[in-house]
């Protein structure tokens, strides 16, 4: 067993014991929900690791790709709103059709007038005419759709399929958008891609917030279907109750009074159902995580992965060896974004509600970056570990800093303004912790906790 493997196992053991600590100390339900979010974060950071660690692509639009995955969850699982389709469906289909025609026309004109000096004027005019035509059908359709029972639906709804499918669709959505952005910006300087992804993620969020016909906007979509049983149903199922009573038979045996014992059983069933649901999610998420990890590792140590590293480490010489850098970059950008999209769909699946306003760049973009850097860019297990560690710290930072502040200011009077101010700003200490962690790791351990494995042959 060599040193890196030992480090990996040690890190995983430490992480596992942290979850056990939370489980025994706070509650198992909390421990499991942190674990589930950790797994989702790990998938996201793996997606970014594919972009950054394999190919050195700087994507600052993680939030947008996550939200696209979330949109997929809504569009796949929500049952279609028949009334909305009746009043606005045709208008929507016509506008979509016109949009496609406009895009095709732009590409066609771009090719025909390649050398003409009027090229941009002609294309601009086409786009404007196209937009006006689309608006003729689009606006009334939107109006009609949004007026259908706005308190409950007011949007087209989805396909009504099982939500699990959205994990694939979310990946495809994100991949499609990534393809378009990559096509435009990947040939340019590397920092332009960063700005472009930053912009597109803001735009995706704005669209989701304001296009009510698509995603209900800030009215949020709630009550998405689940791939796992509901707690309420579980609490009424016989096999589950007997399972719980079997697991807790020693505890129940101590209570002699039958009424008391029924009460205790009831409470145990309620607790157990929540844990059981989270366990189910955990199993599903872990399958996805391991599957992606397997593929990512396979890719990294294949000739393709070697080529990617060659491009990352020295673009000029890789180019001289006949590698098409722009194409490879585009490929890896699309793949990484797709993984992020999958994670986004998983995120919405777990929470069961889609709230566009909750997507904030700090939480969904920059935090993921901290995960990748801390875990070790270029190492998939490292990225997963980073996801676990950073999400854990992010969650536990608030109670810990509250505790620390209370200790440090214990000497001060309870009404002391400075103390009150500090306690008020506890939530922001996690920003400070995250920033410092990022800066310290970049400075003193730039390769992360688990550095990239370099194979010499």
């Amino acid at each position, binding site marked *: 067993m060599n040193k890196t493997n030992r480090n990996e196992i040690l890190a995983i053991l430490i992480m596992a014991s942290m979850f056990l600590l939370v489980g025994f100390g706070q509650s198992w339900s909390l421990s499991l929900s942190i674990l589930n979010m950790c797994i989702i974060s790990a998938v996201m950071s793996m997606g970014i690791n594919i972009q950054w660690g394999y190919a050195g692509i700087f994507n600052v639009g993680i939030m947008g790709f996550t939200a696209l995955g979330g949109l997929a969850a809504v569009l796949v699982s929500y049952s279609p709103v028949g009334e909305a389709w009746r009043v606005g469906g045709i208008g929507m289909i016509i506008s979509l059709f016109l949009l496609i025609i406009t895009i095709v026309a732009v590409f066609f004109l771009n090719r025909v007038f390649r050398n003409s000096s009027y090229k*941009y004027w002609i294309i601009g005019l086409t786009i404007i005419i196209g937009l006006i035509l689309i608006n003729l059908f689009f606006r009334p359709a939107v109006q009609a759709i949004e007026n259908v029972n706005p308190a409950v639906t007011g949007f087209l709804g989805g396909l009504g399929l099982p939500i699990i499918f959205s994990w694939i669709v979310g990946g495809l959505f994100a991949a499609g958008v990534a393809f378009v952005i990559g096509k435009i910006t990947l040939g340019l300087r590397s920092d332009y891609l960063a700005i472009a992804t*930053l*912009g597109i993620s*803001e735009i995706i969020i704005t669209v989701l917030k304001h296009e009510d016909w698509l995603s209900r906007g800030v009215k949020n979509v709630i009550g998405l279907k689940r791939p796992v049983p509901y707690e309420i149903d579980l609490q009424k199922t016989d096999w589950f109750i007997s399972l719980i009573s079997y697991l807790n038979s020693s505890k129940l045996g101590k209570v002699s009074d039958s009424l008391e014992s029924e009460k205790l059983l009831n409470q145990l069933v309620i607790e157990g159902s929540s844990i059981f649901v989270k366990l189910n999610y955990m199993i599903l998420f872990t399958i996805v995580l391991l599957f992606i990890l397997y593929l990512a590792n396979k890719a990294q140590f294949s000739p393709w992965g070697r080529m990617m590293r060659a491009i990352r480490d020295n673009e000029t010489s890789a180019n001289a060896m006949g590698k098409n850098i722009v194409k490879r970059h585009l490929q890896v950008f699309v793949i990484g974004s797709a993984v992020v999209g999958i994670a986004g769909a998983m995120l919405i699946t777990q929470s069961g509600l889609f709230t566009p306003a909750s997507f904030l760049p700090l939480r969904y973009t920059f935090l993921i970056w901290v995960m990748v850097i801390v875990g070790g860019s270029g190492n998939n297990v490292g990225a997963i570990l980073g996801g676990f560690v950073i999400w854990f710290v992010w969650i536990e930072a608030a109670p810990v800093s509250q505790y620390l502040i209370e200790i440090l200011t214990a000497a001060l009077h309870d009404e002391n303004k400075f103390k009150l101010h500090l306690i008020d700003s506890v939530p922001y200490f996690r920003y400070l912790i995250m*920033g410092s962690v990022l800066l310290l790791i970049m400075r003193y351990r730039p390769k992360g906790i688990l550095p990239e494995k370099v194979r010499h042959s």
Partner: protein
Amino acid sequence: MVDLVNALIVLLNYIFIPALSYGSQLALGALGVSFIYAILRFANFSHGDLMSFGAMMTILFTWVLQSYGISLGFLPTAILALPLAIFATILFCLVTDKFVFRHYRTKKSTPVVLAMISIGVMFVIQAIVRIIIGPDDRQFFDGQKFIMKAKQFKEITGLSEGLAIKSTQVITIFVTIILVSLLFWFLQRTRTGKSMRAFSDNEDLALLSGINPDKVVFITWLIVGALATVAGTLYGLDKSFKPFTYLGLVLPIFASAIVGGIGNPIGAVVGGYVIAFSEIMVTYAYKKFFIYLLPQSLEPSGLVQLLSTDYKFAVSFSILVIVLLIRPSGIFKGRTL
């Protein structure tokens, strides 16, 4: 004829003046980003939050001054606090440079790594600002709010459309003109300015001819700190100070810098105005304008708005993409100071 004048006043009131002041704020921000890009050679994502740090410093000093009963009469006290805040922000910049950025500069890290570092700095600044002043909205404007009220304008001219000029708008434009001309004078006429331009043009040649890189970097942070404080304060005075909004400014600021040609100060200024004008022109509802111009029968029924104001980001982003596609180096050629 009167209708035409009224229509023009509408444009002036709702598009030209707001866009001019917003554009000035963007231009100052973009100048800061451009300077970092030209001299230190990385995209500084923490610039928006540096602006919020500067604005916070101004607010703190304003409060101190106000508690001593000092004010500037009809001008906001913030102007008096500005030099102090600039000093504090520059100090902060120099400290971050010493403890964070310098290490990577001497190691000659790639620009992407430095951009990543700037994200770490961004987190820290956000935490500092929120811990010190809190995440809430702060109004720190005092003094006279309007130079000309819509009602006064109507009385003077007898037109039915009013023109309101906020004093913050005038201050913004005025300060921008002074600052930008000082900056260009510095870059074109002084020895240090010339050495900075040389450094940004070709680092190796500049070093060979005996330019001290530490001095150039030092001066850059002085300029960037000052620009960020002024831009942040002006934005805060004009709208209101809310730490969260400054992160959102990063995109239009970068769009301005890139559209103008990143690293080019003239480009940054022009880019700022291009972005501001297009954002406001595309999202303005022209209904009122057309009501004055067109005969009653042709009056528009809708708002005549190309995009709703929610899509401001989309406008700056689209312009960015268009410029990148047509002229990747920006309107003015980038990367020369």
